[in-house]
């Protein structure tokens, strides 16, 4: 856990409008009731989709450095805030894509960073205002699955940033959102190797966020989405739901970081395998050879002679 990390008091919460604040405190109370003292949220996604901005919006302060036109180094950052005995850890990660490929080094750095931490919730961030799902998306999702196992998708939510977006002409906003999320979910399902029915059982949560300062606000000054929902409390609510959804949190241990050691797999079975090979492959093969030798078509003189020799005896 992030116990070693000095967690600062969560001041940012005060910057939220009172309506939001009260909702958040409600959620915090719920955690207290469940006797949960900390929550770790991992934010991942391609570069430039608004991961850091989302972290900042959630924390309510400029905790993660946002750089608009370039990626912010390769190191993940941990933002840790506590409020009345409850600690919220948000881990912002660098974009995984570089030069058209998943940057293995970045993935390894993230894994190393997460060593001995437990991930309670994964937020997979992508933009809402993109029309297509391409191979890069698939690579990122696969890389996450490879890194943390497919179980992580049970503790995940899809975050669609830039949610205050007007779909192109003639398209309904809700329809666009559902199409966009469906496309991405399909990808995640494939990567997570989860059957569709299983996924529908626990509806994969989709959260829309709008980090822009120009985000519309409602009468209580809460940031709202085009359909009128106030998204920050909604996001917290979803995170809470995920953390209590019954699935195991992902503990990143040495084994997970280094990946399963294929050299260790099945090692205990080696004596058995060798015995099997000796008894069921090599011995029968030698027996077969011996029967070949006895069945070998001998030249006539050999047979004839042995025949007459036996008669002689």
């Amino acid at each position, binding site marked *: 856990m992030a116990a070693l990390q000095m967690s600062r008091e969560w001041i940012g919460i005060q910057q939220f409008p009172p309506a939001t604040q009260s909702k958040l405190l409600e959620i915090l109370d719920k955690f207290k009731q469940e006797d949960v003292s900390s929550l770790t949220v991992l934010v991942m996604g391609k570069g430039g989709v608004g991961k850091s901005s989302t972290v900042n919006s959630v924390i309510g302060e400029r905790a993660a450095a946002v750089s608009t036109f370039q990626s912010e180094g390769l190191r993940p950052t941990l933002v840790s805030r506590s409020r009345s005995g409850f600690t919220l850890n948000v881990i912002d990660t660098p974009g995984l894509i570089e*030069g058209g490929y998943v940057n293995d080094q970045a993935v390894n750095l993230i894994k190393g960073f997460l060593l001995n931490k437990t991930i309670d919730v994964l937020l997979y961030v992508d933009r809402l205002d993109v029309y297509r799902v391409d191979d890069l998306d698939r690579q990122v999702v696969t890389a996450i699955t490879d890194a943390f196992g497919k179980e992580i998708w049970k503790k995940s939510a899809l975050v669609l940033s830039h949610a205050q977006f007007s779909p192109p002409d003639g398209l309904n906003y809700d329809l666009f959102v559902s199409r966009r999320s469906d496309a991405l979910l399909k990808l995640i399902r494939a990567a997570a190797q989860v059957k569709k029915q299983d996924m529908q059982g626990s509806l994969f949560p989709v959260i829309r966020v709008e980090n822009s300062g120009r985000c519309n606000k409602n009468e209580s000054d809460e940031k709202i989405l085009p359909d009128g929902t106030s998204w920050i409390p909604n996001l917290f609510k979803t995170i809470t739901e995920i953390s209590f959804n019954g699935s195991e949190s992902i503990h990143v241990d040495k084994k997970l970081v280094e990946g399963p050691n294929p*050299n260790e797999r099945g090692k205990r079975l080696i004596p058995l395998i*060798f015995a099997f*090979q000796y008894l069921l492959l090599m011995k029968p093969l030698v027996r077969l*050879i011996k029967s070949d030798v006895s069945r070998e078509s001998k030249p006539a*003189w050999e047979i004839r002679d042995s025949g007459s020799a036996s008669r002689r005896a």
Partner: protein
Amino acid sequence: MSKFAINGQLILLPEVSTTNSHLPTPRKHSAPSSSHELLNNAPSPRFPSLICCCSSPNRNTEPSSSGHLLKSLGKSLFFGSISPAASQFSSTFSGGGGGGDGGLWRDLFSLATPVAVADEKHSPDWDSHGLPANIVVQLNKLSGLKKYKISDVLFFDRRSKTTAPAEDSLSEMVPIHPGEIHTKAQLQNDLETLTSSGMFEKVDLLGNTKPDGTLGLTFSFVESTWKSAERFRCINVGLMTQPKPVPTDSDMTDREMIEYYRNQEKDYKRRIDKARPCMLPGPVQREMMLMLRDQKNVSASLLRRIGDRVVKWYRDNGYAYANVTNFGSLNSKELVCEVSEGDITRVVIQFQDKLGNVVEGHTQIPIIHREIPKQLRPGHVLNMKAANQAVKNIFSLNLFSNVEIIPRADEKNEGGVIVEINLREADKKSAEVSTEWNIVPGPGGAPSLESFQPGGSVSFEHKNIHGLNRTFMGSVTTSNLLNPEDDLAFKLEYVHPHLDGVYNSRNRIFKTSAFNSRKLSPVFTGGPGFEELVPPLVVDRVGLKANITENFTRQSKSTYGLVLEEITTRDGNIQICKSGMRLLPDGGTSDDGPPTTLSGTGVDRVAFLQANVTRDNTKFVNGAIVGDRTVFQVDQGLGIGSKCPFFNRHQLSLTKFIQLKRVKEGSGIPQPPVLVLHGHYGSCVGDLPSYESFAIGGPNSVRGYTMGELGAARNILELSAEIRVPVKNTHVYAFAEHGNDLGSSKDVKGNPTAAYRRMGHGSSYGLGVKLGQVRAEYAVDHNRGTGAFFLRFGERY
């Protein structure tokens, strides 16, 4: 020479059998792996010969190459059969050495000439008969002082009033040939022989004077006939003492005579019962029976025909010493044919020096003895095919420069044969030093003067230690004498055959060797487009190996043993290298790629057990391989070495050569079309350093790709099919191959397959033609869809 039996005359057939070649007409035969070629070329029709050519292991059997092999290797085996005047049959086998030299042929030829004639040879002249031409003279009218030149010899059957053709076996009984010179005494002697042979009731010899002073001879005869027989029986009387005819007393009363004949009859019955059955197969015996039944009575010529047929069967089947010695039980229901089959009484193994003198040999006799088929041992009937096999077996010991098997008549045991094996031992010790200059590319790629490198090799061999065929050999080779540690290859090997003792029929061979090797790793190879980016990695191995091999057949064997190895991975500058290059997304490289060794230090030490079982039933059908091959190999780690490597690395390879059409076997007949199916599965459980992972792609994996172009994985599966269609005396082929890592590339540490941008699997297909040892093929790489030409040496499967 005539013998009497109880109820009729026994006939001693002439034992002259030599003009019949007892070997099949020219034929060729090749054993799949022994590479012996047998050719039967007869320099003279009288001397069929068998030439065995021993060449380096070579599966080539094309007719064109055999002549070349004969010439180039000059190692041959031949045997000839001759007939000295004593009517004894002798054959010679020889293996190795410069066979077929003229001197020997001459010797054989002179032996072959009947003695009677040879005696006369030195007489330069002959005498004219001095009589008017074209008159018939009785033999007793001829002068005893003159030497007559015979112009022709005729046989006139008085009963059928026909003249028997000269090629009839009759002529073999008479050692008189046109153009020869004989005296009256000789002619009388010959006539006597015929008269007493029992085949004729009456024989007369008439002379026919010719105008040129020569004499034509006519034997006019009446054949002996006996009562018809219904059954035929063939017995082996070899090594049985011939019954001594008890002289009949002219004073015997009739009663005594009857008693005498009865006793003889009893004796003969006993003899027949005691005799061993002969090898003559049922169908041939039935054939004889039918021949007997066809005739109203048994005539001498019928007996002759039967005798010839029986002898022919023996000759055709390699029993060179078999002879019909007698017909018994004449005038009874059952005709008894007495055959002396040629029983081996003794096998003599002797060593000869280069001059042919018998010397004491270094090789221990049991070593040779175990190579002799049991059919060539005392108590068995001499068969030339068995003798031939013995020559091949002994020659394949690789200890003798010359192997000769000569059967001789046993003078002490009538009907017996002594098999004499003459061996010339090859040099026991040899050493060789050679040096060479290598031109290596200079810095610019082109060879420069400074880059001439002196190289050299030293090798020695000590063969046949203690005369037990144990061998110790070693070689050291470097391509750079100035800096030998750069590239030094060595090998020391000790081979100890007959581990279970020379007398044990089981032949396990113990072999131990110290070796090193240096190879480019196919694991650290870039995929398409990245070939240049991935620097080569050299895998150096130094090790000790000890194993025991048991050869079940020439091709099937099992081997198990222990291997101790030190593996060092080096970069292009021969510096120890811990990990391969890593390709960065931006096109750069860094040196923290996949680890090259298990220990991570660049040097691994490991001990493991290695076992291999090969079942190979392939054989050649007119030069095309047909059959099955199964190879299973396992390397079992023992947990001894760097990082205690414990692993089980195994491979199973199955190859099936399916003959698609039945063809006759023989030289000159085209090969059958063959479908080849091949599967190879490899897998490793436990510690797997990258250099032991299975590389996919390459001429022996998936053709059309370079070595390791498709990846390196923990488990692999390769499948391929090839169809071979004969064209003239070679074949063209089409193939399709697939190699797959079964998703196990990621289970190799550092995933070298993905690290170097390789697919992990791939297919190819193509066409090719086999030209001698070279395969020229066009293969299409299915991953990119491009094709390329390749020239490869040797076989794919």
